[in-house]
């Protein structure tokens, strides 16, 4: 686990704000920094509206980030003009949540796959493109007889395979999966997830797997990031996160996962009070403080830093409870934070 791994994507303080009516701003993603290592699956979880999908879309530049940098293989793509994104598009692809709206109903799936190749100038002749499209169809478990079928002739699971084929045909290294299985039946979910895992093995893919279903994320991810109201509140390896959830939000989230045998479990269900605050006017300090059972006045005044706390390396959490441990005393922490602010100014 300790070996040096290649960082393939690195985001620093990525923000995505949307202007809404009355000169207000929705802070959908508010400063997310994370790294994706080559060949891993990074699960991004959080409740509806926490900005995880927006983050995924911003990452592949379907939207431009308001602030922050996105580096793919060391190259900053956060402000690259659309013209220069050709290579990025080849490297990073996306699989969408709803398999029923993500395919153009008027285009045969074979033609759609060939069009992707055409856009990127891959393949010389039509028959070469056709061969590549058929190759990819077989790879995702579709029959080549389906080449000339329209999307509506397929089931949800098959459509998601088509969506995956569309992403894979460019031979990308990174795939952003935006809740790719949440619209599917549970039995189909496992098929598709296993397909994802098989393809990762064979093609050395890196996944950013966005989901709200913790059990799916637990099964597929190497590392997990937990988002709340546009912030990444905790990040750790899957085992570490499940055995030692640090952030109060993560603890509450994990306590809500159903147990196979509830009688044997001694798990305490943590019920969060209140609703998700509006991302137009997020709480001051720590965004979670309005619902946090441990909130203090400090949480109101100061935004917690994201610190690598442990117990294992790479377990990062943004919560004052652990910052104190990190700095020794609250005073030391505030002082350190003050210095940081001074430097920033």
């Amino acid at each position, binding site marked *: 686990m300790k070996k040096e791994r290649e960082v393939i994507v690195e985001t620093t303080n990525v923000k995505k704000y949307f202007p809404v009516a009355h000169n207000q701003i929705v802070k959908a993603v508010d400063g997310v920094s994370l790294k994706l290592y080559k060949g891993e699956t990074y699960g991004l979880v959080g409740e509806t509206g926490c900005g995880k999908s927006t983050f995924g879309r911003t990452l592949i530049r379907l939207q431009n980030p308001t602030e922050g940098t996105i580096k793919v293989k060391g190259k900053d793509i956060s402000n690259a003009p659309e013209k220069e994104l050709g290579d990025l598009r080849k490297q990073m692809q996306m699989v969408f*949540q709803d398999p029923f709206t*993500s395919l153009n109903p008027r285009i045969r799936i074979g033609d759609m796959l060939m069009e992707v190749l055409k856009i990127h100038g891959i393949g010389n002749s039509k028959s070469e493109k*056709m*061969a590549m499209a058929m190759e990819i169809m077989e790879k995702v478990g579709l029959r*080549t007889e389906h080449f000339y*079928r329209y999307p509506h002739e397929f089931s949800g699971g098959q459509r998601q395979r088509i969506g995956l084929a569309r992403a894979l045909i460019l031979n990308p*290294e990174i795939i952003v999966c935006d809740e790719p299985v949440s619209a599917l039946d549970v039995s189909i979910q496992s098929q598709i997830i296993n397909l994802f895992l098989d393809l990762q093995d064979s093609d050395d893919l890196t996944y950013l797997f966005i989901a709200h279903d913790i059990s799916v994320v637990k099964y597929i991810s190497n590392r997990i990031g937990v988002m709340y109201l546009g912030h990444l509140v905790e990040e750790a390896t899957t085992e570490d996160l499940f055995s030692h959830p640090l952030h109060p939000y993560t603890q509450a989230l994990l306590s809500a996962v159903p147990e196979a045998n509830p009688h044997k479990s001694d798990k305490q269900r943590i019920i969060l009070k209140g609703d998700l605050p509006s991302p137009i006017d997020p709480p001051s300090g720590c965004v979670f403080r309005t619902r946090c059972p441990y909130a203090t006045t400090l949480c109101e005044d100061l935004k917690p830093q994201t610190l690598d706390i442990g117990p294992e390396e790479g377990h990062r959490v943004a919560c004052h409870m652990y910052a104190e441990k990190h700095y020794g005393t609250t005073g030391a922490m505030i002082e350190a934070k003050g210095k940081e602010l001074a430097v920033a100014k």
Partner: protein
Amino acid sequence: MNNMKQRTLTEADLRRMVEIRNRLTKEQRSLQLHKFLRNRQAMVGLVIFLIVLFAAIFGPSLCKESPVALNVLNRLKPPSKEHWFGTDTLGRDVYTRVIYGARISMIVGVSVGAISGILGLIIGIYSSYNKYADEILMRICDGLKAIPSILLAITLMTALGADIKNVIISLTVVNTPTMGRLARSAALVVKEQTYIEAMRGIGAKSRRILWRHIAPNIMSPLLVQMTFVFATSIITEAALSFLGAGVPAPQPSWGSILSEGRTVIFTSQWMIIFPGAITAMTVLGLNLFGDGLRDLLDPLSS
């Protein structure tokens, strides 16, 4: 990275694929055809329309007489064996004139429907895509729509002069804003679909997205609207000709025949009844066809 072994398609493979494609296309077509044939309303509309179209195309060669041949001795004769629809104030055969009039109505209807449909598509697509184009195009459309359409058509006809070409131009100007607005609203809906986002994620250029992915998906409402524009153009053309601002005399148009019959409405009703009934039938047929087409193309509306 690329562990896809290159596979090549043999002649036999390609032949097999073409076979699959043809079989599927045939299946899909016959399915659609069946669905359409089952829609009785649309079929009735289509048949009426086809009869009028047939008359417009081949009618003139079926008529022995000229629509402008005067026969003053035979003026205002009621329907008979020689003159099915009677004769008019100048002794011209009303049947022949109605058939020739159908040609004018069809030319006007088809041209206005097609041209305003195409212009509407272009306007709609670009205004859904570009904010500035949207503002400019939609304000022009608003302006044109603020004027009652028949008034606008008359004004344009007066300015341009009575001629079938000018009838088409002015009716296109009248109908394009509606088409543009329709195409725009449909395009705005399609634009938000995930598959458009997916195409952007793949790196498709705007032009490809607009014309290959958005345009085909807004064609159904546009096609339906085109049949209605076709129908209203026939009516408006008749109205213009009735008012003397349409196709110039002595060219026969349904509107001008009605106009001539107006003066003798109490003595020679056939001059009004036949062209009037045929105009109404044609428009009814087109509307029925359009409704059926809408049911066929958009299963949600039925």
